């Protein structure tokens, strides 16, 4: 039985902190290991910041999930921003269109178990990530 997803509107720095705290709370609840909690919260922080900085704000939904064998956490990050025209480039370590380090997207993908991105130039970006309990 899955709990309903909890949604946070992301419009400021403070909301990014709230996303981190909510993800941490749910990750503890499904008993992710400490290292996996840390990885998931870090990935969520990167992606929520992207939603804010590059997407111009949007929302994040966090939910417990269950594939029958294992429990996990699924997080959706969605914005109606400019979208990403060149995904290969966006996933290159060190590439940034803003002032960052260029590690957010590629780094976040390494920190989770499943990573799905739907985007197109002018149509916003929606990223879904999942981390499973071991």
């Amino acid at each position, binding site marked *: 039985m899955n709990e309903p997803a909890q949604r946070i509107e992301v419009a400021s*720095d*403070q909301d*990014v*902190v709230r996303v*981190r*705290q909510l993800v*941490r709370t749910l990750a503890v609840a499904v008993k992710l290991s*400490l*290292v996996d*909690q*840390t*990885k998931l*919260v*870090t990935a969520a*922080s*990167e992606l929520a*910041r992207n939603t804010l900085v590059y997407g111009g704000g949007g929302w994040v939904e966090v939910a417990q999930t269950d594939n029958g064998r294992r429990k996990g956490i699924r997080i959706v990050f969605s914005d109606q921003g400019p979208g990403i025209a060149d995904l290969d480039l966006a996933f290159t*370590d060190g590439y940034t269109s803003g002032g*960052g*380090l260029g*590690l*957010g997207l*590629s*780094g*976040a993908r*390494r*920190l989770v178990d499943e990573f799905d991105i739907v985007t197109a130039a002018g149509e916003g970006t929606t990223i879904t990530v999942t981390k499973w309990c071991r």
Partner: protein
Amino acid sequence: MERVPILKIGAILLVSIQIDMEDQVALQLQEDLADRIVATGCHGVIIDISALDIVDSFVGRTLATIAGISKVLDADTVVVGMRPAVAITLVELGLSLPGIRTALNVELGMDLLARERFQDEDEDEDGPDNAETPVVPAP
């Protein structure tokens, strides 16, 4: 907006980050610390991150920037107290924090700073000595 306090202990500035920082708070810390280094003339900065349960690329970059600013203001920075899970995550994220000195805790950080300062002073003294050492045979 919250602010991270900066404590002066002897010749060292100690910053212990105890809150989940908003990005703006991290940027404010960067400015506050630069001001305090200049105001106090301290040569060492210790940043204790033992209370942080994550360090993402933004905080990582802020730490690197602080170390860089301190350096040009003649102060060494040591980041102390990183949790093991944070270290694992940082490396996987791709952030190796080049140019940042680390120590396991505040005490070891203070030792490191004291040693470095001592060596620096040694070199300063050695400098002129060395210049005089070469034995030039009298004509």
